[in-house]
């Protein structure tokens, strides 16, 4: 009985049920729209109907005269406040409200403040904006054509639509040699189309500026509150201590809530102008049309093999950044971590080129569980392995097995400059194949093929690099990508740990309490995890790129150990012995050789705050703080296998089975890890089969609501089958690696490979771009693959 109790309520790692559930299952979460401040006004944004147009005039008089409207703000008003343009995370600038031109459909043009949200929206059509439409740049591949209209004429010296110079990694000459020596070469043009994280709660802000004190209070659901505060301090010219950002409960983020959006600055400016709190929350169309999208990578890839093993990779990318470069990635990595695209293979050489362009589309580009472009990299390399296997006439799983980096090669330096920490790739793929019953599936497929049924099996194997990152290599806007932790054990022996990671549903209140519990032996229910308030948490860069456990989790482990070390010194005084004569067991220091004699952590805490004498040179109290600088990224990996059936009459793809074996090192809470994987796999099903943001030739967004931007429901998602291998991370204090993004990274190529596998033999299909909608699959079956967008 006691054992069961222990499993249900582990003091430390294990399947602990979530502490945060109690409020959510009763409808008592506090999301942004649930907050109502006295005297609060409501904002709404007028958006551009054109993708590219000159603004000739804006007349706000009718809107201002509308009953209930408090103010209408345009670019001209913002110019007087110095807020018309704001910096992006990538050292570009972005218009807060368009003054000269609109550069994408849905761009912010005016901000109305009114007594309620209905009135604010009523006033939007009363604003008269005169536009002169301009030709739009929609296709990234034509953005640099000599006759392409110039989008960023606001930037001095900008003569074309190049958003950033070509960025390269790897050794071009060595790659040329590998290709020259190869016996098999395959080439593919691959598109990772534009899609959107679309968290169920949209983006918004309540800004409350107090003119008497100059204090700016912000309520917002963002993934990096401390970094946002620094940005606002720069933008608004306020000291950071005069700005307080509170993120209460956040209804999903997935990278969509990393950037600073014009609507946020409008809400702040609105509160300054109106002298009252201003709430602005976007609607679903605004979310899909204007906030941080994902992917939009056009890739030309070549892969080669020699003697049955993959040897080289060459890839040339055009990245579509939209009208403003607001991709969120470490400064020194303008193409993010895309050059991790050597994947899990022991390549002789690889060479990567990435060129980024402006188009008349919404800005963004790094979001949706993608870990700074690793999603695009993994999709490309895993599609290429599939293509190479097809060309060589071998099973794709076998080609991977033959080409993997072997366990004894770790730590492994890739040809593009990464140092993978640990792994046993072949073992993980083997486990996935066993769960899938791979040989049996191939037999079933052969039988079905003989009957004319379309069944496909697809594999993908990924290596991720997460937990950015070491301060010597990685910063965002000059801010080191480190995270703080502050741990206080109170006189009662209960504890509070403050962190700079920001949950959007990942279960931090549980996982981080478990880390302290594991290290100090305090029950997790007695540990309060504090986050989401810049006044009450240490500095750090927040939660995205699967960095919570690798960076903040490590910070919490290290701060717990600092407290434990201090507790040892205090225990030595209490037990009248020397610190080195004490040994630790969970929750207690005891005398070596006399285990009965010891002090529990709560006894030590009580002593630390009492009037009793402290050890020589030690301050009272039992607390510590750290800023954790990770020595390297962590490199989780996994083997995924998809089984699909395609209806030969409707071309509808159904994912019948999906097997995911992840190795993310030590699992702090396996229940939460599994939950993260389930969620990411569902997103992968959506991206592979349904989700896409497209535009017509004039730049009109064609997927601006959930009627057109299709997200998988319970009927499209299979009953995911998970497995695990555990290869501890050698440099993380807990041996843990990040995991949140892995399933989104690994699943789309597995599904697309399965779709091609279903259609290759019967229909000669060798490539299909995502999403594999019935229309696109049908066209491929007819030998008319849809031209890339």
């Amino acid at each position, binding site marked *: 009985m006691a054992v069961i109790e222990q499993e249900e309520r582990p003091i430390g790692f294990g399947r602990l049920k979530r502490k945060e559930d109690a409020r959510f*299952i*009763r409808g008592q979460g506090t999301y942004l729209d649930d907050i109502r401040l006295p005297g609060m006004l409501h904002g709404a944004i007028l958006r551009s109907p054109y993708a590219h147009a000159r603004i000739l005039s804006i007349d706000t008089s009718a809107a201002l005269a509308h009953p209930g409207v408090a103010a209408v703000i345009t670019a001209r008003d913002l110019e007087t406040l110095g807020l018309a343009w704001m910096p992006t995370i990538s050292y570009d600038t972005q218009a807060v409200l368009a003054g000269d031109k609109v550069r994408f459909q849905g761009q912010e043009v005016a901000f109305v403040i009114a007594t309620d949200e209905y009135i604010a929206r009523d006033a939007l059509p009363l604003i008269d904006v005169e536009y002169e439409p301009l030709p739009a740049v929609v296709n990234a591949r034509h953005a640099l054509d000599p006759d392409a209209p110039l989008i960023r004429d606001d930037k001095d010296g900008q003569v074309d639509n190049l958003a950033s110079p070509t960025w390269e990694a790897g050794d071009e000459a060595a790659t040329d040699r590998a290709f020259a020596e190869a016996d098999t070469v395959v080439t593919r043009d691959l598109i990772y189309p534009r899609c959107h994280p679309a968290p169920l709660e949209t983006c918004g802000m309540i800004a409350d500026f107090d003119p008497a004190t100059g204090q700016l209070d912000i309520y917002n659901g963002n993934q990096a509150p401390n970094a946002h505060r620094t940005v606002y301090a720069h933008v608004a010219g306020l000291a950071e201590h005069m700005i307080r950002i509170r993120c209460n409960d956040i*209804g999903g983020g997935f990278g969509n809530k990393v950037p600073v959006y014009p609507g946020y600055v409008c809400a702040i400016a609105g509160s300054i102008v109106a002298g009252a709190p201003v709430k602005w929350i976007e609607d679903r169309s605004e979310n899909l049309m204007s906030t941080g999208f994902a992917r939009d990578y056009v890739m030309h890839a070549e892969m080669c093999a020699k003697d049955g093993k993959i040897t080289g990779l060459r890839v040339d990318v055009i990245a579509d950044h939209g009208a403003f470069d607001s991709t969120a990635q470490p400064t020194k990595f303008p193409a993010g971590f895309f050059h991790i695209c050597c994947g899990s293979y022991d390549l002789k050489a690889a060479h990567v080129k990435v060129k980024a362009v402006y188009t008349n589309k919404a800005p963004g580009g790094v979001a949706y569980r993608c870990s700074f472009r690793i999603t695009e990299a993994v999709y490309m390399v895993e599609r290429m392995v599939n293509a190479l296997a097809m060309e060589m006439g071998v099973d794709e799983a076998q080609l991977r097995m033959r080409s993997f980096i072997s366990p004894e090669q770790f730590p492994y330096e890739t040809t593009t400059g990464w140092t993978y920490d640990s792994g046993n790739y072949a073992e993980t793929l083997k486990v996935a194949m066993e769960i899938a019953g791979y040989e049996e599936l191939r037999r079933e497929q052969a039988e079905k093929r003989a009957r004319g049924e379309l069944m496909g099996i697809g594999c993908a194997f990924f290596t991720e690099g997460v937990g950015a990152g070491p301060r010597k290599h990685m910063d965002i806007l000059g801010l080191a990508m480190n995270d703080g932790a502050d741990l206080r054990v109170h006189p009662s022996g209960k504890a509070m740990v403050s962190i700079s990671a920001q949950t959007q549903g990942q279960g931090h209140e549980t996982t981080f309490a478990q880390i302290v519990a594991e290290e100090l032996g305090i029950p997790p229910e007695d540990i309060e995890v504090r986050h989401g308030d810049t006044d009450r948490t240490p500095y750090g860069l927040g939660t995205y790129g699967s960095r919570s456990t690798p960076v903040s989790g490590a910070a919490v482990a290290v701060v717990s150990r600092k407290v434990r070390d201090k507790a040892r010194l205090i225990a030595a005084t209490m037990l009248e012995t020397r610190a080195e004569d004490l040994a630790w067991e969970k929750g207690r220091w005891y005398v070596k050789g006399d285990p009965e004699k010891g002090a529990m952590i709560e006894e030590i805490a009580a002593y630390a705050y009492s009037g009793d004498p402290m050890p020589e040179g030690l301050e009272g109290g039992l607390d510590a703080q750290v800023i954790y600088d990770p020595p390297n990224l962590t490199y989780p990996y996994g083997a995924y296998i998809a089984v699909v059936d395609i209806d030969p009459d409707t071309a509808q793809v159904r994912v019948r089975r999906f097997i995911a074996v992840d190795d993310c090192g030590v699992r702090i809470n396996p229940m939460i890890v599994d939950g993260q994987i389930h*969620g990411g796999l569902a997103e992968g099903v959506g991206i592979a089969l349904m989700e896409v943001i497209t535009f017509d030739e004039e730049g009109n967004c064609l997927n601006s609501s959930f009627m057109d931007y299709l997200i998988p429901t319970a009927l499209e998602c299979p009953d995911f089958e998970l497995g695990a291998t555990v290869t501890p991370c050698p440099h993380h204090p807990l041996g843990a690696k990040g995991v949140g993004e892995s399933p989104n990274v690994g699943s789309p190529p597995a599904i697309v490979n399965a779709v091609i596998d279903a259609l290759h033999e019967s229909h000669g299909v060798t490539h299909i771009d995502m999403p594999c909608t019935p229309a696109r699959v049908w066209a491929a079956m007819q030998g008319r693959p849809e031209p890339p967008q």
Partner: protein
Amino acid sequence: MQVTLTINGRAVSRDVEPRQLLVHFIRDTPGLTGTHWGCDTSNCGACVVLMDGRPIKSCTTLAVMCEGHEIRTVESLEVDGRLDPVQLGFHEMHALHCGFCTPGMLMTSRALLDENPHPSDEEIRTAISGQICRCTGYKNIVAAVRWAAEHQAATRPIEEVQ
């Protein structure tokens, strides 16, 4: 115009614009922000409440259409500090991450079990297929509803899940 409806057993009467959405009417009632809004187009189901025992989307229902009807929201599931089996199931099976879709999912699950106490997994998936969860991949939601079906008499004070 004046509208009177019952929310969680309590009559609520208010003078509203005819265009006011039910989701806003509910959320404007003190203490009832558990019903969420997510999409405008009846696709996501964050706004699902029960009208006369059946799930409806309150973001595309006008408050005035509910005159005389009985509305049940997530806040009605807990009675005297004790949780409903569907609430316990979601906690037991880790069927929620960010919690934003959870109230709607709970209400649909409650309605399903009221009508069909022993649904198959396919029936559960079909019942929640008008709703989007962006976090869980649905697997654990299905397991949670199954748990609730298997523990229909289960109830537990809220303190035990805190």
